[in-house]
């Protein structure tokens, strides 16, 4: 009915902004809609988990930011990555231990009632417009706006925004863990906010993260459609850079402290160094552990038969697509032998000259999370633009790699598909991204910006590329698993289907199945009825789910759901209480954000009935006892603290008001920025608040070229030959200058950057540079190949050296760390596959 009225309304008057406001106002008055499929899925899910694996939030779209949303979702739902992100940085021992829990993030909930008009003005309306531009959706009768059609994604997204809660992240949240605001902290804040949320569903606004990210990456600083894979690579590299920079600072800090005589921190520093001996600052290797694999490129000189090997690290593999192939097969051809001949000869140390050679790349170290970038965008000279390949490329739910080296550890490692980032659209410059993600125990979900919807397992197979609708898998995320886990899961999966079928058929005969008492049933949907549930309960309204604490606080030792949304405008999201020690903050921060339990208790006092509170407290304290020896003392301390906490709480609210104001200002600024027509590098200087402007500017400039470098491994050989126009960064000059020049040109014409994705355009290569330039600097092999998407570091020495090349790298790192962002070192200067050695200057 409601949809029908909406239709009428939409049909009657065009889609103007005022109209939207009107219609949404009427929407507000409508009764709460029925449960969404996700809410049904999560109904009776039991207590909220502390690891965040049961949070299924949509992410708000700020105008073509679906590339970010889909990748962030995929990253969040990687258990390894999520856990590591939220537990970094580890608390330092020099920080006084007055806080006991992980710092919570100042997330505010946009009250749904006001959020609708606001959201329409600020956030919600933007994506609508961009959708139209993106043209990813079937054209709908002009008289009807897409969001008014009840089954349309727009409608669902709008409903999701209305439904809320809409989490917004406050600014300046990086302080608590002693890091400057950076991509990592932005991501960490998102993750923490989701984990801490008391609701399992809702929408989170990643605006803050995007602001930070865009500040550091110029080419994303527009409202254009961006490449999700590129974004993924840059985010990971940023995260690595941020974490390592922080790790190094901590290390230095620890060293300086140990010089000062603080034995405690010295010990810790030593312990840390022992725990993680390596080139990286201690405790920062986790990103590498998760995503990094090692490729060995073996080159065999055809003249002297000498084989040389080089190892390179990778964060993902960019694989060329063949028509009607499988991912398995594309990976095989990735590792197929390649002839280095003609203009692409190999400089053999043994023969001492350019020789023909055979080269092949194999995987030596298998990463925990294997990201496969399907090169769907191919440069075509005819149109001088990137074209999308709609090849049918099938991908299995499970995978093993055939292209491993003989000495690879666990070469038969089993991978399972856990996320598919899908590109919908006709070419590289338009379209939409969504993510289809396998969650830990809730089956597969479709994450389409604000909307989250459970889907059938077979839905995953809709994106092979041949179906109508132009939706193709673009990035596949496979994660490590084991055979027995797979078997177990497959067995359980079937049980679900049977159970659902049984329930659907309303067969009361097989009660054992319905009760779900056996552990085999505990998966996917079956985790819901932990206690036997009346079927009719699935029909409870949204209100119940949102506000009724009963379902949750029965088993949960934390406080119930936050108070009604209207009250909690300034209410920091309550964190789950993991026994992880908190990070020290500056004094005022500590005051504004008191340890979570205290705040909770204080609030509880006010809001909860006495009995409930007592129960909660007792349970909570019982839990604490397990974690701590001095529980009693702490309890006493609690009593004392409580008095003081009231004062603190008032302070807190003040502070939050302030931060809200700041957020509003920021939003305004953001809007202004977006309204500004041009987005040249100088004009979009919004992000530099907390950096010295000089540094910030340099920073950006440097990064721009670097990120371009990264993405243009293959792009390099398209055109630019003028190696002289170096923009003055240290390090390897030639290729970067190429890149920065590219960038300069493309950004000059309105930021329309050519997205390359590491594809090798079938362009006839430019005339080769003089032969001296063809010689690799390093005789041990050719330079890194553009086959892979994101190379971590240019390992210029063979890996077999036990003293890793990274050590040298690290030294350099330390030297120019002061004025240059460390991540510069990280970008490899890999070149086009066929032209692997051409651009290395003979310096």
């Amino acid at each position, binding site marked *: 009915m409601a949809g029908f009225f909406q239709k009428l309304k939409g049909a009657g008057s065009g889609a103007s902004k005022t109209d939207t406001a009107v219609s949404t106002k009427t929407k507000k008055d409508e009764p709460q809609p029925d449960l969404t499929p996700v809410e049904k899925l999560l109904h009776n899910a039991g207590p909220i988990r502390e690891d965040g694996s049961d949070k299924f939030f949509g992410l708000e779209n700020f105008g073509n930011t679906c590339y970010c949303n889909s990748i962030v979702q995929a990253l969040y739902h990687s258990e390894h990555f999520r856990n590591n992100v939220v537990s970094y940085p580890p608390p330092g021992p020099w920080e006084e231990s007055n806080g006991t829990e992980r710092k919570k993030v100042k997330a505010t909930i946009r009250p749904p009632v006001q959020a609708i008009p606001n959201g329409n003005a600020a956030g919600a309306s933007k994506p609508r417009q961009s959708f139209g531009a993106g043209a990813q*959706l*079937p*054209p709908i009768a002009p008289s009807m706006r897409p969001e008014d059609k009840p089954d*349309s*994604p727009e409608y669902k997204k709008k409903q999701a925004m209305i439904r809320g809660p809409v989490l917004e992240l406050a600014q300046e949240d990086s302080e608590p863990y002693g890091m400057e605001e950076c991509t990592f902290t932005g991501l960490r804040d998102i993750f923490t906010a989701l984990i801490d949320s008391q609701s399992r569903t809702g929408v989170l606004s990643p605006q803050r993260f995007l602001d930070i990210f865009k500040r550091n990456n110029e080419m994303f600083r527009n409202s254009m459609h961006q490449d999700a894979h590129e974004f993924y690579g840059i985010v990971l590299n940023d995260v690595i850079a941020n974490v390592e920079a922080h790790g190094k600072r901590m290390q230095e800090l620890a060293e300086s402290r140990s010089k000062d005589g603080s034995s405690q921190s010295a010990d810790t520093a030593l312990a840390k160094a022992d725990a993680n001996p390596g080139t990286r600052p201690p405790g920062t290797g986790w990103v590498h552990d998760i995503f990094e694999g090692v490729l060995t490129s073996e080159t065999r000189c055809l003249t002297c038969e000498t084989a040389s090997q080089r190892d390179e690290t990778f964060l993902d593999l960019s694989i060329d697509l*063949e028509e*009607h*192939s*499988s991912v*398995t*097969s594309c990976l095989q051809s990735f590792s197929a032998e390649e002839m280095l001949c003609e203009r692409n000869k190999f400089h053999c140390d043994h023969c001492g000259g350019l020789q023909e050679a055979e080269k092949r790349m194999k995987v030596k170290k298998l990463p925990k999370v294997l990201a496969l970038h399907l090169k769907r965008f191919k440069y075509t000279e005819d149109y001088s633009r990137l074209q999308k390949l709609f090849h*049918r490329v*099938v991908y*299995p*739910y*499970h*995978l*093993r790699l*055939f292209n491993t080296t*003989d000495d*690879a*550890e*666990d*070469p*038969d*490692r089993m991978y399972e598909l856990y996320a598919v980032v899908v590109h*919908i659209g006709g070419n590289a410059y338009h379209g939409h991204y*969504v993510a289809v993600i396998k969650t830990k125990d809730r089956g597969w979900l*479709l994450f389409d910006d604000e909307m989250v919807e459970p*889907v*059938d397992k*077979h839905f995953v197979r*809709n*994106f092979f590329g041949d*179906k*109508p*609708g*132009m*939706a193709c898998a673009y990035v596949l995320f496979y994660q490590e698993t*084991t*055979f*027995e*886990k797979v*078997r*177990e899961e*497959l*067995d359980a*999966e*079937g*049980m679900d*289907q*049977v159970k659902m*079928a049984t329930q659907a058929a309303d067969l009361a*005969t*097989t009660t*054992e*199945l319905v009760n779900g008492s*056996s*552990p*085999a049933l505990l998966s996917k949907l079956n985790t819901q009825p932990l206690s036997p549930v009346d079927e009719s309960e699935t029909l409870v309204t949204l209100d119940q789910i949102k506000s009724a604490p009963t379902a949750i606080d029965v088993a949960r030792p934390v406080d119930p759901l936050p108070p009604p949304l209207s009250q909690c405008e300034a209410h920091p999201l309550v964190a789950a209480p993991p026994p992880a020690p908190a990070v020290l903050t500056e004094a005022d921060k500590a005051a504004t954000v008191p340890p979570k339990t205290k705040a909770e208790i204080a609030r509880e006092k006010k809001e909860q009935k006495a009995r409930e509170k007592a129960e909660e407290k007792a349970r909570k304290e019982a839990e604490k006892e397990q974690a701590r020896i001095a529980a009693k003392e702490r309890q006493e301390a609690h009593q004392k603290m409580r008095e003081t906490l009231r004062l603190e709480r008032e302070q807190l609210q003040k502070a939050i008001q302030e931060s809200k104001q700041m957020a509003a200002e920021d939003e305004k600024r953001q809007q202004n920025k977006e309204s500004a027509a041009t987005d040249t590098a100088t004009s979009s200087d919004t992000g530099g608040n907390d950096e010295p402007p000089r540094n910030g500017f340099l920073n950006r400039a440097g990064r721009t070229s670097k990120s371009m470098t990264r993405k243009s491994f293959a792009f390099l050989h398209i055109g630019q030959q003028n190696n002289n126009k170096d923009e003055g960064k240290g390090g390897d000059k030639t290729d970067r200058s190429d890149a920065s020049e590219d960038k300069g040109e493309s950004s000059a014409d309105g930021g329309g950057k050519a997205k390359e994705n590491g594809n090798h355009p079938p362009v006839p290569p430019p005339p080769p540079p003089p032969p001296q330039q063809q010689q690799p600097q390093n005789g041990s092999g050719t330079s890194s190949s553009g086959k892979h998407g994101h190379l971590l570091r240019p390992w210029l020495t063979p890996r077999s050296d036990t003293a890793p090349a990274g050590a040298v790298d690290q030294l350099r790192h330390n030297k120019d760390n002061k004025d240059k962002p460390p991540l510069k070192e990280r970008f490899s200067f890999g070149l086009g596959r066929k032209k692997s050695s051409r651009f290395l200057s003979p310096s």
Partner: protein
Amino acid sequence: MFVLPPPRYPPQGYTSLPAGMPVPMIETNNILSNPSGPEYQFLVGEGLYVLKEDLHLATPPPHPSEAPIVNPNPLATTPQPATAGTRLSLLNLDVSSLFPAVYRSTSRADGAQGSIQEHPDESKSSTDMRESSSDAGRLNFSDVPLFTSNAPAFGEGNTLLAPVAQKDANKRRKPKNNMSKSNSSFISRVINHESLNKRLQDRPRDGLFGFANVNRAFQWLDLSSTSKADYLTKILFTKAHCLCHDVNKVTKSSTHIDVVMGFSTGEIIWWEPITQRYTRLNKNGIINGTPVSDIQWIPGSEHLFLAAHMDGTLVVYDKEKEDGIFIPEEEAASRTSGDTTRTSRVNYSSQLHIHKSVHSKNQKANPVAAWKLSNHRINAFAFSPDNRHLAAVSEDGTLRILDYLKEELLDLHYSYYGGLSCVCWSPDGKYVVTGGQDDLISIWCPSETDSRGTALVARCQGHHSWVTSVAFDPWRCDERSYRFGSVGEDRRICLWDFSVGMLNRPRAASVRHRGSVSSRPGAGPLQRAETGGTSASGRLRSDSNHSTAVSATAAEEGETSKGKVLSHPVEPRAATATLPPILSKTVDDDPLCWLGFTPDAILTSCKNGHIRTWTRPSELAQQLEEKRDA
């Protein structure tokens, strides 16, 4: 009175049709073409295979009752109905002509009989069986020759299943309903060729019939006719897609052909094309509501056939029985280990769950038997040539070997990764070949599991995408070497020559001298992990090479399952022999979904309805011709 419906489809698509054509012609027609050129032939050892013709079956437009999808939402989460690419069931009414001459000329060595355990009451043989033994011309190529086996008939011993004595043995019972006059909403329309009877009379007796599904249509083709593009009969179903079909080789005659079709709705149609009569079984999914992914007549049986439903159930139906409301008879619980009650975890890796046994006393209605293999879709199954065993592959990547006569699960093997999609037996019943989503074809020898507990003989690498169909070429098999072919989503046909002595083994491991695990460097951790995993999930063959803990569990497990070990660990790649194809060639524009061998050709079919006939090298054809004459 049957009145032809008015034209249902807008005529734009058929502009070549003059106005006022008879209504049935409004359907799009099949197109026969003869493309030639180097890309339409391929060369293997025995000679050149050349594309003879390409028969493109017309894909029918959607039924008018279905709303046309204008702009499909690529993210629509509504489940899609099951469909399948074109597959063929071939039928030759002539008994003698299709015997694989090459194969027959060689005496049979220790084939199936030696390798597969003897059945206690082998001497007994039912009428069904005798009939099939004499019927050597079966065209179900996975089990063509060697009907020397005298396995008992399925369900023997249950008197309730004994075939009802008929007055006239030659007079077959026909299905009940007239298809042309049917007003069933299931069938949209039936179109017979104008001169159907004449064509049937004029055709050569050894000519090949083909039955093919395309989209919601089902066509009966005369592949021996010069005008093979003109179907004999075309049935259009309203909504349901026919996913699989089979022809009974026992009852075939010039006056009677039994065809069964399985549908996306779970329903099954038994159709007799000569008299155009049909019966609908499992109506409205009363027995099982999930789509039928594979269907085959039980070898030697006149009226029993086996259907694989997508919920992992194998159901035996009797074509002549009525549907009954089916509630699983809980025999499974009491049958094997007593503690396996329904409340505990149902373990499909250790046993077959018999929802209804063939020996059940209640045989008044369908189903005759129902076995639950797992909860995952069974993609295909195949009967062993000796009619004792059944190999079934499913979407969860398992190959199950069943003794379907005894209703027992014998072995459980796992794919390297991904689901398995097709399976067939070697003509001598010694090997099982599977293809799947790991782009591999795996050769298994179920009768010879080695000390490591694996029956994997080799993995065949050559396809560039998922494998969709495998079949042996019985005309190029002898007792030592085997020829089989495969097709896949990569539009390729691969041909493989495989002989046990010639396998390309990995350097580090000699597979035939099995049990020498220690000589496999690099495989250690995985091997342990894999086997550990298997033991955790259930059964494991005891293996002295594994760590003691694992062996202990294995032993325990072995005891609990009466010493019978069922599931086998996955072989690491480093320890497995690999086989390269002798031919890999792209032969179509669309993913292929079926291939079959006839004495003079290889047939392939694709998702889009192309049936291509590749004639064998002429020398061989001549050779075969001579042998046939002699």
